[in-house]
Structure formats: structure tokens, C-alpha cells
């Protein structure tokens, strides 16, 4: 047996390849951990969003049952972030594109919750410090501009579902609580026109969606990048979402008062958009 082995001289490059194997194994292990964590974060974020869709009020703290039922999902996200944070430091910071799946979904959940609570759009810096807080004292998972922007695009879809459910159940478009006019700040926008800074009308979801869209339309990702492709695709979806809310709002205004409470605006009446009905009815 040993004689047989001697007949096959060991490749002179074995030591080099053994070193490579060690490195590649570490790399693949890191990637596997990140893929798994990214999936878990995605699933937990989806569950958070699902619970948030049961909220009916805007600009007020979430009802206790929402926080309670989402607690475990936030905990999952925290645990996963902490697990993979060491894997995405220094030279490995941008090495694993799979990280972005979880990050985008997380951004969607985070920005949706933030909007429901405060009726404001969470900023990139706020979102990053939230991730840092979840990661605790250890290293922090990087959240890129891509993660942030694409998550916000998806959040608009959640605002669409939120608005349509609220309109169907309560018969009106969700708006914030009436607030006192802030001293000397921008004047509020109503029906697209600036009004005098008099007693402030609360903003509603639809005007907020339009404003976010306006801002996003001015944002240009690098030409020829995958980011640009993603943005273009999501921009189309976002525009459709706003259209759906506008249509529901129109139906509500024109015929809403004739219908009994609880009637759902029949979006399928609009031709071309066969998928509208199915999407709305999932909620």
C-alpha cells in the first residue's frame, strides 16, 4: 500500500493549494452564514410588515399588540445581524452581495414602521444608526445607499396596501392627527398647492407617497449599474402603487357615500391592470 503511494509523487503545488483550500473554505463558510442570515432577516421583516398592516392609525405610537407580536421578529433580526457582523468587516465589507436581500427587506419594514409611528420618512443616517443599535457593541453590518433606496421603493408598496385596506374598512384615506403649525417651517401642501401657514391640515398617505416619489425621481443611481436597473424597475411599480391608491380614492370620493361601510373599492373595473385585484385582495 505504501509502495503504491510512493509511485504517485505528491504534486509540488500541494502546499500552495492547501493554503488556498483553507482560505476558500473560510470564504464559503462566511458566504453561507450570510445567505442564511439574509434569508432569516427577510422572513422576519416580512412578518413584521404583515403585522404592521393591521395598524389603522397614522402618526401615533403603534398599538401594544403590534409591538408585542413583532418583538420576536426584531429579536431574530438582531441575532442574525450580530452573527454576521464579523463576516462583513474590512476587506469583506462588499464581498457578499447576498447581504443586500435581507438589508432591503429590513429597510422596508423599518421605514414602514417609522412612517406609521411618525408619519415621516426615515433618513439614511437614522436607518444606519438603527442597524448599529441592533448590532450592539460589536462590529456593525454595513447598510448601503442601495439597500436604503431600494427598501424605500418597496415601502411605497406597503403604503399602498395600508391605504387601500384603511379605505375599504374605514371609508377614508389615512391621515395624520391634526397638528399645530410648526413655527416658520415650510407651509403644508394641500392638493398640490401651498397654503398659508394657518392651522395645519394633517397630511394624508397619498400626498406623502407622491412627495416621496417626487424626491425619488430626482435621485439618479450610477449609469449602467445594477442599482440603476433595480431602481428603474421599482420606480415603475411605485408609480403603479400610487395610481392604485389614487383610483381607490377616486372611487371613494365619487361613489363612496352610496356604498355601505366595509365595501371594497372595485379596482378590477380598470381595464388593462388584471393583477390589481389579486394584489389588493391578499389583504
Amino acid at each position, binding site marked *: 500500500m505504501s509502495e503504491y503511494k510512493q509511485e504517485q509523487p505528491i504534486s509540488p503545488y500541494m502546499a500552495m*493549494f492547501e493554503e488556498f483550500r483553507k482560505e476558500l473554505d473560510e470564504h464559503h463558510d462566511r458566504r453561507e452564514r450570510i445567505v442564511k442570515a439574509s434569508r432569516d432577516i427577510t422572513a422576519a421583516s416580512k412578518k413584521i410588515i404583515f403585522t404592521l398592516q393591521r395598524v389603522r392609525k397614522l402618526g401615533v405610537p403603534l398599538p401594544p399588540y403590534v409591538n408585542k407580536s413583532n418583538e420576536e421578529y426584531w429579536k431574530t433580526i438582531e441575532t442574525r445581524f450580530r452573527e454576521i457582523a464579523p463576516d462583513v468587516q474590512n476587506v469583506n*465589507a*462588499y*464581498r457578499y452581495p447576498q447581504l443586500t436581500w435581507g438589508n432591503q427587506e429590513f429597510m422596508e419594514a423599518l421605514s414602514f414602521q417609522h412612517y406609521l409611528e411618525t408619519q415621516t*420618512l426615515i433618513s439614511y443616517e437614522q436607518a444606519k444608526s438603527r442597524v448599529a443599535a441592533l448590532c450592539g457593541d460589536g462590529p456593525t453590518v454595513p447598510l448601503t445607499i442601495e439597500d436604503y433606496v431600494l427598501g424605500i421603493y418597496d415601502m411605497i408598496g406597503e403604503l399602498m396596501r395600508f391605504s387601500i385596506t384603511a379605505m375599504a374598512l374605514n371609508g377614508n384615506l389615512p391621515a395624520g392627527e391634526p397638528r399645530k403649525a410648526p413655527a416658520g417651517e*415650510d407651509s403644508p401642501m394641500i392638493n398640490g398647492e401651498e397654503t398659508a401657514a394657518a392651522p395645519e391640515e394633517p397630511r394624508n398617505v397619498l400626498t406623502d407617497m407622491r412627495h416621496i416619489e417626487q424626491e425619488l425621481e430626482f*435621485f439618479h443611481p*450610477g449609469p449602467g449599474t445594477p442599482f440603476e436597473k433595480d431602481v428603474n424597475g421599482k420606480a415603475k411599480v411605485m408609480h403603479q402603487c400610487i395610481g392604485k391608491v389614487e383610483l381607490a380614492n377616486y372611487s371613494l370620493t365619487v361613489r363612496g357615500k352610496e356604498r355601505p361601510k366595509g365595501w371594497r373599492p372595485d379596482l378590477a373595473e380598470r381595464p388593462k391592470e388584471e393583477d390589481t385585484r389579486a394584489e389588493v385582495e391578499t389583504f
Partner: protein
Amino acid sequence: MAAPSGLIAHGLFEDLQARTDEDTAIRDGLRDIIQTWEKQNRSITYVLSRGHGTPIAKLSELLKSAEEPLGKAVETVGKLAEVASKAPYYKFNGMWSRQMQDLVFQILFWGWLGGYENGGGEVKSGRLMNIEEVGEYLKVPVNLKDEDKFHLAIEEYLHALISLVEELARLARNSVTMGEYERPVLINQFVKDVLAGFQILNLKNDSLRRRSDSLKYKVKDVEDIIYDLSLRDLLPKKE
């Protein structure tokens, strides 16, 4: 376009735009350098591909003449490294990884033929430059694990090594045509040694895996050549 009070923090998207534009500027800078690099790589290929028709006696000269285009490409790598180091390495690495693999392959081929230790006279072929030697030649660090800087990655080296095996399988055939029967024997041993190395790697389902899967066919191609030579008693006799 005044946003309603408080919805969107002032300057939020302007700030994101500014940061995105910075990346775009870096990307544009890199793209220019990479285009130059690509042309230089082609000039190296142009010279080295003559290796398939050059008898060993004249190889030294050919390898010398490859040094100038190789040097130019190395210079470009230096420029690229400077610009690329303004951003995290893996952020833009995909832009030049292909060119890097190409150049490293050319260096390995040149080195294998005998260019790396070319003292004039008859060259001695068969030497594989390891990743450190290639890094030294390119004047860039190799396989950085912590520091986030421009470097030559293991995967790039391995891709280049697969290309080298493919090129040598071709060279084995052409050597026979030129009447050089010793070289296929050298190549046969070399590609087997490389294949043995690849066989201990746990490759995942990526491009490296797919390409390394084809190595065994290249090894077989060379074996067939050896078989043909032995059948006709053309193999050089072992002393």
C-alpha cells in the same frame, strides 16, 4: 418643490445623490484605466501567442520581447490600484477582475515558458510562478484578509491557472508539430500536478468550479498526445 413639513428631512436625497455621484466618478475613472489595460493585455497576447510556433531555441528572444508590453500592463495596474483604493476593494472589484485574470494568465504563461528566470541562452520551461511571485511582479499585495486594499485575489490567480492549463494543452500539440517531443512530457506532468491541486479544493457552484471541472479533459488531451508519441516510439528516452 417644498416637501410638506417634516415628511422628508431636509437634504436627505441631496446627500444620497452626492455620495452616489462620488461613486460614479470613481467608476468612470476606473473604466478609463481598464479600457487601456484591456488593450495592453491584447498586445501581450499578440506577442506570446507566437510561442505556439516558436522553437525552444528561439524562445528566449520572444520572451524578452514580451517584457515591454507586460511592463506597460503592470504600470496600468498600479494606476488602477491607486484609484481603486479610494473605495472598498470588493465594491468595484467586478469591473476589472476579468482583466486581472487575463493578465495573470499571460504572466503565468510567460513565466512557465521561462520568461521569469530568463538569463538569455536556452530557456528553461516548466516553472509555475506562485501567487506571491505574481503579486511581486504586479507590485500589488496578494490575498489580503483584513486590510481593505487593492490586491490580487486567490480566485483571480486560480482562474489564470486554469487558463494556463488550457493554453499548455494547446502548446503540447503544437510542440509535436514543431518536432519537440520533450515538451509534451513536461506539460503532461505539470497539468497533472495542477489538477491534483484543484482536486483538493472545495469549490462551490461558481464559475471557478465550472472551469476547474473542465481541467480533467485538458489533462486527458495531453495524455492522448503522450500516448500517440509513445506508440510511435517518439518519446525521448530516459537516461
